[in-house]
C-alpha cells in the first residue's frame, strides 16, 4: 500500500452519483474489487472507495453523496489535492471461465474496471430508479432492471457470478449462485487492518473486511 497526495482532475455527475477523477501519481490501480482510502476534506477519517475506472494516468471513483464525507468528496474542485492510500484488501479472482457481473445501486462502482479487465463480459445491474440507472452506462454489455424487478431474477444458471451491491442483494445473490464472489462493505476507519471497525458477520464468523475481503467467496 502507498499513500500519496493526488490532484483532482474532474468531478462528473453520473445520474445521482459523482465520478471523482484524480491523477494517478505513483499509486498502483490494483485488482478490481480492491479499494482505496480517500481523505475526506474537513473530516477526521478517510472514506473507503473501490476503484471504478483506471484510465491512463488516472484513478476514478464512483461516489454516492450520502453523508458529510462523501459530500465533501463530491464537491472537490479540479486541482485540489487529497491523500489517497491503496490499493487495499483482496479484489476479485479474475480466473473465471464464464463471468457474469452483478451490481446493485452504488455497488456498480467496481464493475466498470472489472468489466474492462475481463473483456466486457455480460452484466446485470439493478437500480431503484431510472435516474440511478444512468450509472449503467459505465458498464458495457449490461442488462438493466429497475425496482421492483430485482437483479436476482435475471441471473442465469451456470455462470461465475462476481457481485457488488447492498447486503440484502448480496445475500439474495448468494442464495441463487453458490460460489459467487461477493464484494461487501462496512464502515472503516483505516482500511489496513488496524481499527477492527469493519468486522462483519459472515457464515457465523466476524471477519475484518479490509484484510480478509472486501471480496469474499460465497459458501
Amino acid at each position, binding site marked *: 500500500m502507498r*499513500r500519496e497526495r493526488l490532484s483532482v482532475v474532474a468531478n462528473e455527475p453520473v445520474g445521482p452519483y459523482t465520478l471523482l477523477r484524480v491523477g494517478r501519481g505513483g499509486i498502483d490501480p490494483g485488482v478490481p474489487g480492491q479499494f482505496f482510502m480517500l*481523505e475526506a476534506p474537513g473530516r*477526521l477519517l478517510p472514506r473507503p472507495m473501490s476503484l471504478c475506472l483506471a484510465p491512463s494516468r488516472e484513478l476514478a471513483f464512483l461516489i454516492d453523496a450520502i453523508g458529510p464525507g462523501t459530500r465533501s468528496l463530491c464537491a472537490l474542485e479540479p486541482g485540489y489535492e487529497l491523500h489517497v492510500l491503496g490499493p487495499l484488501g483482496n479484489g476479485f479472482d479474475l480466473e473465471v471461465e464464464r463471468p457474469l457481473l452483478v451490481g446493485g445501486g452504488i455497488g456498480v462502482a467496481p464493475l466498470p474496471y472489472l468489466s474492462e479487465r475481463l473483456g466486457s463480459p455480460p452484466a446485470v445491474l439493478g437500480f431503484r430508479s431510472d435516474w440511478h440507472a444512468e450509472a449503467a452506462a459505465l458498464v458495457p454489455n449490461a442488462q438493466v432492471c429497475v425496482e421492483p424487478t430485482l437483479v436476482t431474477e435475471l441471473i442465469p444458471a451456470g455462470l461465475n457470478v462476481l457481485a457488488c451491491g447492498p447486503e440484502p442483494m448480496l445475500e439474495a445473490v448468494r442464495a441463487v449462485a453458490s460460489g459467487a464472489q461477493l464484494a461487501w462493505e*462496512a464502515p472503516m*476507519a*483505516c482500511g489496513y487492518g*488496524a*481499527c*477492527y471497525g*469493519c468486522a462483519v458477520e459472515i457464515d457465523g464468523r466476524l471477519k475484518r473486511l479490509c484484510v480478509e475481503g472486501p471480496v469474499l467467496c460465497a459458501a
Partner: protein
Amino acid sequence: MLLNASGCLDAIAAPDVARALDAFVTKTVTPLPRDGNTPVRIAETEVGMLNSIGLANPGIDRFLSGSLPQLEQLGVPLWVSVGGFETHDYEEICSRLDDYPSVNAIELNVSCPNVEAPVESAQQIVAGSRLATRKPLWAKLSPAVSDIGEVAKAAQAAGADGLSLVNTIRGLKLDSRTLQPVLGLGQGGLSGPALKPIALAAVATCYRATSLPIVGMGGVRTGLDALELVAAGARHVAIGTTLFADPDAPARIRMELHAAAQERGWSTYEDAYAAAHEQALSLRTT
C-alpha cells in the same frame, strides 16, 4: 519514545508502520479469545471517533503461539496490553508473559470503556500483576474518574512502573434520521481531537501526583500535539486515531516534534519535559 496507542495498529498486517515506532503496543490480550462486539463498531463524530470494538483478540494461548513469534520478527520493542474481567485474569496473563524475553513491558488495560469494567480497582489489579511478573508494568487509566491523580497514586503504591494516559472516554452517536444509536453496542469510546485537552489535564495531574513516567496519548495529530503532552509531563507519546487516517503518521509526527521543539528553543523534545509546570499555574485554585 513514540509508540502506538493499544488497539490502533496491527503490526502483523502493517509491519512497516510498526517499524516506524520506538515500541509497538499490542491490542489488548485477554485470557480467552474474543470476537468483540456486534457491528457497527466505529462511527465518526464532529469532534472525534467512537469505537465499540470490545477487545477482539485471539486470547493468550493463540497470542503466545501465533502472534508473538510474528511480532518478534519485527525487530521493534514489544509492549503487550493485558485486559480481563477480574484481577486473576491479569495475574494469569502477566505470569505467562514473564517467561518471554521479547516482551519488554506490559500495559495493564484497566479502563476499556467497551466491556464490563473489572470489578476490582486499578490498585488491586496492579498489585496482583506486580506479584506475577518482573516486567515493567504500565497502568492505562481512564480519564472518566473524579480524581485521576488519586488513581495514579494508588497504582504507584501497588507497584506500577509507569502510567499510560489516557484511554478513551464513553460517548454516544445517534443517527440523524432515526435518532437511534449508530453503534451496535449503543455507546463507545471517544478518541481523536476531543480527547486532547482531557489527556493534557490527566497527564499534568498525574505528573504532579506521582513520580511515575507517563506515556501521553489522546488526540495527537501533529508534532506540536505531541510536544504539548511532553510539556504537560509525558516522557513518551503514543499515536492512536491518527494512525487510522495516516499510516505514515509516525515518521511525520517524529519530524514535526523535533521541529516544534527547536522552534521553541529546545534542542530536543525531551528538554520540553514538564515545561508547562514551571510556572505552576494550574496548581492555583481560585
